[in-house]
């Protein structure tokens, strides 16, 4: 059992995402601690990939910036090690499968266990392929987080029944990125999930304003925000900490109302 359950114990969870190594590894450590101070309940850390096909432009660019700065998979683990000296907040990796495959599943998840990484989200490993990693991940107490999309239909309950940690409900078609409007009936998706599992549901993709975060959290157990935070980091670089704090505090306050 991972620490993920804790994130959902105190009301609605606010789950921020950032890309490891953008603008540099030390700043990522600082920003993660700032996210927690502002009220984040769980942190999603993106392991950079050269070709992030599920990401919009904002996170694509962050991946490229981080890789140009020379971040490696061991460099990301080092970030987690430094964070773990200060906090036990639940941490989940978001990573395309190839860097993990290349590291070696056994070695990767053993390292996750050693450093206290609680889960993994792999946007290019759907339900049909999840055996690729579940063996090694589960052996090391790492939850494989399932994604459910607006197009999942009959797949919703099949996926939900085997879900662990939390379920990442994708709010919209397309790739990650800020959206002015979310048109999918996410409430209905969450209802279908609830019929078969008690695993918490958090909604992500397109959420940037406190109003959106509240609306999504009201329909589920939490809101996931990535691009909006990565945008702040892109804009303020090394000086982003206080801006991240202000933004996340407002978002967390909104969903707790």
């Amino acid at each position, binding site marked *: 059992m991972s620490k993920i359950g804790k994130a959902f114990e105190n009301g609605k969870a606010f789950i921020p995402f950032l890309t490891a190594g953008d603008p540099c590894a030390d700043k990522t450590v600082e920003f993660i601690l700032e996210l927690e101070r502002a009220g984040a309940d769980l942190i999603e850390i993106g392991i950079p990939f050269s070709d992030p096909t599920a990401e919009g432009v904002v996170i694509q660019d962050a991946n490229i910036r981080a890789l140009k700065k020379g971040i490696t998979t061991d460099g990301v683990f080092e970030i987690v090690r430094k964070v773990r000296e200060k906090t036990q907040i639940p941490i989940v990796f978001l990573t395309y499968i190839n860097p993990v495959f290349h590291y070696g599943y056994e070695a990767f998840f053993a390292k996750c266990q050693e450093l206290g990484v609680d889960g993994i989200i792999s946007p*290019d490993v*759907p*339900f*049909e392929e999840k055996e690729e990693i579940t063996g090694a991940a589960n052996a090391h107490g790492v939850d494989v987080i399932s994604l459910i999309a607006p197009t999942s239909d009959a797949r919703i309950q099949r996926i939900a029944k085997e879900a662990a940690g939390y379920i990442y409900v994708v709010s919209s078609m397309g790739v990650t990125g800020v959206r002015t409007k979310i048109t999918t009936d996410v409430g209905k998706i969450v209802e279908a999930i609830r019929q078969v599992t008690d695993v918490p549901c958090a909604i992500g993709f397109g959420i940037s304003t406190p109003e959106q975060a509240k609306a999504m959290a009201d329909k589920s157990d939490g809101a996931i925000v990535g691009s909006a935070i990565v945008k702040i980091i892109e804009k303020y670089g090394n000086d982003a900490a206080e801006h991240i704090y202000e933004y996340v505090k407002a978002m967390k306050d909104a969903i707790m109302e």
Partner: protein
Amino acid sequence: MKKGRYGQFGGQYISETLMNELIHLEEQYEFYKNDKAFNDELQTLLNEYAGRPSLLYYAEKMTKDLGGAKIYLKREDLNHTGSHKINNVLGQCLLAKKMGKTRVIAETGAGQHGVATATAAALLGMECEVFMGKEDTDRQALNVYRMELLGAKVHPVTSGTMTLKDAVNETMREWTNRISDTHYVLGSVMGPHPFPMIVRDYQSVISKEAREQILEKEGKLPAAVVACVGGGSNAMGMFYNFIEDKDVALIGCEAAGKGVDTELHAATIAKGSLGIFHGMKSYFCQDDQGQIAPVYSISAGLDYPGIGPEHAYLHDTGRATYVPVTDDEAVDAFEYLAREEGIICAIESAHAVAHVRKIAGSMSPEDSIIICLSGRGDKDVAAIARYKGVQISE
């Protein structure tokens, strides 16, 4: 073997948003595969519109010059739109139309697949948008205009290395954004299942015809069939109906660019390693962190860091052999075929010609080799002139 797998290769490593559509696509493909009306319609398009069957041409002068095995050219360059790409595109666009789709999207490298898709879309009355790396829109500007003439919208892709892999990334992103009325006409035997199977099946017409043609002309099977490999669609089409003929050597020619000992190549089998990318487990050019490596070839159509999963399997089992061919060798072969046979072939196909120049002389005159001449070279003339330092102004 598991569905959608070729040994350990293949699979469906793709976002959840696309999964139901892929399942639906497979069901529809399997249904129409056995539907007589569909097959008749497709065959009519292939014969009456694309110009099939393509010729199997005996290259007599080349054979004499090389002094060994008889050389035959499977003339996919003579198809409408000038390459083998039309075989797959007509199949997929017709299938998409039957599925109720009104819009097709496609990636393109050299522009051949984009042109073919734009052509089929025009013919079948569908909307078409093509994603093409910015670097490729520059080096293949004529094909961009060609697609626009055919009514397609061309999006230059400025992310990443601005070449074929980035065009694939962007087309996948667009498909995730709009699925209900849109089919992604993937251009090669790559990507998530069922694409490697569908594209192979539609391209296998190449070897189906070639096998019959060579038996008629030679009374026996060829000693080898040779094709260039990027993602691997013309090679898969050329190999497929010969796989069970164990005495026929299957040879794929990869782009070695400036040489496999440099960093400027796209030789996936020679230099790549196992990985998972673009929906499939296969071999990829990548760094020690599993980041996809920038690749290079003079040929935009071979400038791709991966290879289709069935090729990876044919390589692993030893059934097919993959060899690297450099830019210089390909350009030499491009000029050689023009002078020797009066055929200006695509620089992609010239990679296969180059390899045959190396092996034919040591083979028996009793034997034959078929080269898949996957495309015509009009699109490459300007680039070859630049490569040779020749100034051309229009």
